[in-house]
């Protein structure tokens, strides 16, 4: 009997301390931030006083007109042409827009973020640049002019400029769209890697998507990369 009483007593004591400490932790963790936010919110909304000037119907319609005008201006300012392409380099996806509607979407491949170091002087970061680009040129049956890193990557010394070994046919697919500064949207022989970040900075697409995009986008069309 005495043992049970003792046991119950120690249990009650433990429960009490757990309760007190729990209350203390909860108050510190939740109540303090809540009070801070409430004080801040109360202060920031405290200046809303009853309006001293009423808004007339005319002023209200003027505000509506201004909102419409701003929408039109913004629309004009952001008009990206009839067709444009948006590329997501994190998830390796693309969306093709025509007349502000998505007409095709799917997977692509973008820069691998590999930083290739040849020596202390030469290095390359294989990254797809972000920003807005325009299509400078459209090519069919493109030929790849291999840059130095393509040889260094294979463990070969780079040949002199214009050397025949620098030109490779058939590796970029049937079409290519030039974004400038050496970056292209092109096809690939390694279709199974589409959707992965494996390129040297170009945007790779599968054959069907590439053909559709090639036929939809014109020279001057915009490509947004993020």
């Amino acid at each position: 009997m005495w043992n049970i009483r003792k046991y119950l007593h120690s249990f009650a004591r433990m429960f009490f301390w757990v309760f007190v400490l729990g209350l203390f932790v909860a108050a510190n963790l939740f109540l303090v931030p809540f009070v801070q936010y409430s004080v801040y919110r109360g202060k920031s909304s405290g200046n809303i006083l009853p309006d001293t000037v009423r808004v007339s119907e005319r002023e209200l319609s003027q505000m509506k007109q201004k909102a419409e005008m701003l929408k039109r201006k913004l629309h004009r300012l952001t008009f990206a042409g009839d067709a444009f392409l948006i590329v997501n380099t994190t998830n390796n996806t693309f969306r093709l827009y025509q007349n502000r509607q998505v007409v095709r979407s799917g997977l692509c491949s973008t820069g691998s973020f590999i930083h290739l170091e040849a020596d202390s002087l030469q290095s390359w970061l294989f990254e797809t640049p972000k920003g807005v680009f325009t299509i400078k040129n459209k090519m069919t049956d493109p030929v790849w002019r291999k840059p130095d890193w393509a040889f260094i990557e294979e463990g070969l010394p780079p040949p002199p400029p214009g050397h025949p070994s620098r030109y490779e046919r058939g590796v970029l697919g049937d079409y290519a769209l030039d974004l400038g500064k050496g970056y292209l949207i092109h096809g690939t022989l390694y279709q199974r890697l589409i959707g992965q970040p494996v390129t040297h900075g170009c945007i790779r697409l599968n054959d069907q998507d590439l053909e559709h995009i090639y036929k939809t986008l014109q020279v001057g069309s915009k490509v947004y990369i993020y």
Partner: protein
Amino acid sequence: MNFLKKRKGLFSIIAVFTLLLVFFVVRLVFAVSSSYTGFGKSVSVPLRSDVHTAGWNNSEVRKLQKDIFLLEQLRVLAQSDSISMVIDLSDSTVQLQLKGMELFHTKILRKYPGVFLDDLSQEAYRRFAQITCIGNEKANLSKKPVKKIQAFQKETIGSGAETANLQNAPVNWSFVTGNNVCVVITGVKLNQDSTFIMHPTYDLIKYFTRNFFNEIFPETYSPVLYLWLNDNDARAIYRAVPLEGKILFRN
């Protein structure tokens, strides 16, 4: 002596209880005072012009004024060459914009507080919703997942890419904006039957505990907005927005 021995338990309870209470009260005083001192650099600076905010109390006029202000800010953003982020709390979306073009938008799966600074005065709202910069960024992933490789010793590109593509812990990204609003973004992963695995209470306890240990007696305060986004989308937003990128709120 016997009396003291009997009351020892009671005295210790009172002593500990008083200590905890004093600690809590001191912390609360610091917290409240930090909320007040934070006003100087926050969105909530009270201005005299607030007295003459014609129509701000009318919900229709207030919505129109907010729309107009947002459009004006978007026009300014459209002239910027960098990718910017728009957190639209009224629509519960986060957008990426470049040259005024909406590149991408994602739904806010959950936010805390449910309604964030919804009743700001007009002047305070203009400070809250103006274009500002992201600062003091902390994240558990890198902006550029660069893998260094020495020439002639490199692995194949394919296998390198596979390691890059591995998805690890959900995104945890926090920053403080120029108008002194702290934003904490948590990525939410999809499970096999395409439903989101979300533990907001657990996340909040984790954040509150971290904040408690970071600043036991807080001296500064920024209102904190906790957002839960699709993990892939949160990752894309984090990688797309440049360091000290621009951000815009709409409430």
